[in-house]
């Protein structure tokens, strides 16, 4: 790292710190969810009585947000659009972290770009939604607006990088690959990129300490992931076992 510019040195340190907080925090949280026992059988019924059925139900819920659809169609529309577009944006960014880029990944780039361009729309919709309905306004805290605004700023700065203040994409890829391969190189001193990258690091570091943990937590929810078979199979409470 001796040959790095001072700016690059700062960002290399920040990047690894951000990644450490993100992955460390994420694993810590997920580990906590995984090892905390379910003393009692508490699926919300009607619910499948077999593991296969439970997996199928959860796949549908996680890929289609089926329970939210039942709950509120307008919230579902905004939330679902946002998450699908987010996947497109990830696909868009993946090419910057992998070399060589696979043909499939290269092929989907135009679609992914379109997705990235749309990202601000559901975010703005979700922001307005929080203000527009008295119930949602009542439950929304600064933290809820902060996440949406942070994501919106990341999206807008990313679009700025692509369409306004065009960045040296080869230089960025060099820098990111260098980080991934643990042999850091200089960061392109490009203002729009620095802003975009800084905001993304903030999001990563914030993630494990926030409601964004719903992304991992949804896989552990006992009311959804337990099998409804308490009469057929004795559920043992680990902390009550003698």
């Amino acid at each position, binding site marked *: 790292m001796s040959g790095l510019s001072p700016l690059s040195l700062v960002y290399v340190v920040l990047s690894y710190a951000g990644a450490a907080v993100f992955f460390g925090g994420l694993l810590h949280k997920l580990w906590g969810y995984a090892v905390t026992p379910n003393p009692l059988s508490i699926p919300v019924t009607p619910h499948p009585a077999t593991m296969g059925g439970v997996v199928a139900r959860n796949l549908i819920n996680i890929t289609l947000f089926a329970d939210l659809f039942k709950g509120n169609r307008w919230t579902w529309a905004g939330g679902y659009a946002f998450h699908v577009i987010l996947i497109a944006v990830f696909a868009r960014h993946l090419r910057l972290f992998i070399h060589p880029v696979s043909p499939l990944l290269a092929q989907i780039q135009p679609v992914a770009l379109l997705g990235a361009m749309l990202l601000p729309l559901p975010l703005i919709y979700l922001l307005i939604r929080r203000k527009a309905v008295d119930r949602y306004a009542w439950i929304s805290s600064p933290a809820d607006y902060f996440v949406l605004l942070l994501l919106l700023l990341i999206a807008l700065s990313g679009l700025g990088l692509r369409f306004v203040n065009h960045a040296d994409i080869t230089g960025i890829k060099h820098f990111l690959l260098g980080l991934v391969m643990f042999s850091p190189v200089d960061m392109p001193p490009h203002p729009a990129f620095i802003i975009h990258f800084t905001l993304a690091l903030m999001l990563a570091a914030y993630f494990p300490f926030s409601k964004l943990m719903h992304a991992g937590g949804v896989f552990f929810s006992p009311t959804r992931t337990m099998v409804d078979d*308490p009469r057929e199979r004795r559920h043992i409470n680990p902390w009550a076992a003698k």
Partner: protein
Amino acid sequence: MAKADFEIPDIENGVSVPAIKPGAMAHVKYHAASEAHLSKLGFPAKRVDNWKEVALAKMNELMGKYKSLKLFLDVCVKCGACADKCHYFLGTGDPNNMPVARQELMRKVYRKNFTLGGKLFGGLARAEDLTEEVLREWMTYFHQCSQCRRCSVFCPFGIDTAEISMAAREIMDSIGVGQKYTLEIIAKVHDTGNNLGIPKDALIGTLEFLEEDVKEATGVDVKFPLDQKGAEVMLIVPSADFFSSPHVDSLVGYAKVFHAAGISYTFSSHASEFANFGMFIGSYDNTKKIATRIADAGRELGVKRIVVGECGHAYRVAYSFWNTLAGPFDYLDKNHAVPTHICEFTEELIRRNALRLDKSANDEFTVTYHDSCNVARASRMGTEPGGQFEIPRNILKAVCNKYVEMDPEANREKTFCCGGGGGLLSDELLEVRVKGAAPKAAALKEVMDNQGVNTMAMICAICKAQFTKVLPYYDIPMEAVAGVHQLVGNAIQLGGK
């Protein structure tokens, strides 16, 4: 219409989502538990001096013991899908009765004391310490939750407010702050084996009286046996079935079913109660103790099967928790589900054509069915998911000519609670109960006005007690409330086949 000193929601055109009215229900307070009851159940007799520290330590302990609590405090994104789903919110407009906001009462304390963001940014994260005022909010609003799980049906993460409110009540009890109604009842069940505190002699008297009564009405010797060793089945019913109306009519119905099926059964004086209020206060130990009492009674009597009566939360405890808390039930016949719900028992007999039924006996009734929350969303009947909806309906259609469905948006898995569940069936909470009953009353009113329904059948002792009390506030006569086995009892033809 019954008179009230509070405003009764207008249900004429259904119940729509109200505008929020902050603090609308803040004035409703439960009666405090006595020192004797608190200490009897293993809690401090009065509020401990360092209550805040003790409460936070308890909260930390529970987060380590319950995955639900640990996860649910973290992952709510406050999407608001649950915000308009609680019957208490729909009936009162108090924003703290939105499930997400009710959970926030605990989540804000969690953030302040257990998360980095809450410790660093306090107000911005809406983190708050467990102050005297927050404790008051807990006492109020965690007793305006009937733990019916309706919110969790619509939650993208399955967050169940019942888990939070049970934990909150457990934490409050652990610092010596408890609700009289639930604690007094649990103390009684530990002492006498039933919630009403009925001694064995009174129980014998009641059962004898019922035998005479049925004999007089039908000319048939239908037995109501108590403590009969070697009977095939132990029947466990909510103690309200022995004394309350219309509950007792279902009790007669169960007895007639056993008589007609020719299967011997017995009640137990040691465990003369199906209800298990230990769940309402989130107390694992008390729930276990009550469940174990029943398991012991069955073992002592040498029965082969346990059949349970019409009670919602008790069926949840029996179906979902008994095996864990008081199992294994290895003294029972493995060919039958443990426990078997009386509806499963009766429906099987109907399917086998083992009962003689005269539907016309119920011709004065046009019947609809109310899905009780804990049966609908926390248990199952039969082998297929959703059997808890179909089996009671199959019975009703077999014993009545006129059967009508209510709006499925207010029934089945989306059923609205009666408004009296979860330990709220107490006089001082009447305003909450009446207002919380509005969505279900509206669904009932709709089929009464448009399809001539005059009877709502159900399989929950709390629903029966609650509806007979609160429906008159909506101009619906309490006679509209019936048990499923009350109608079975009307239709069943006794004597030789």
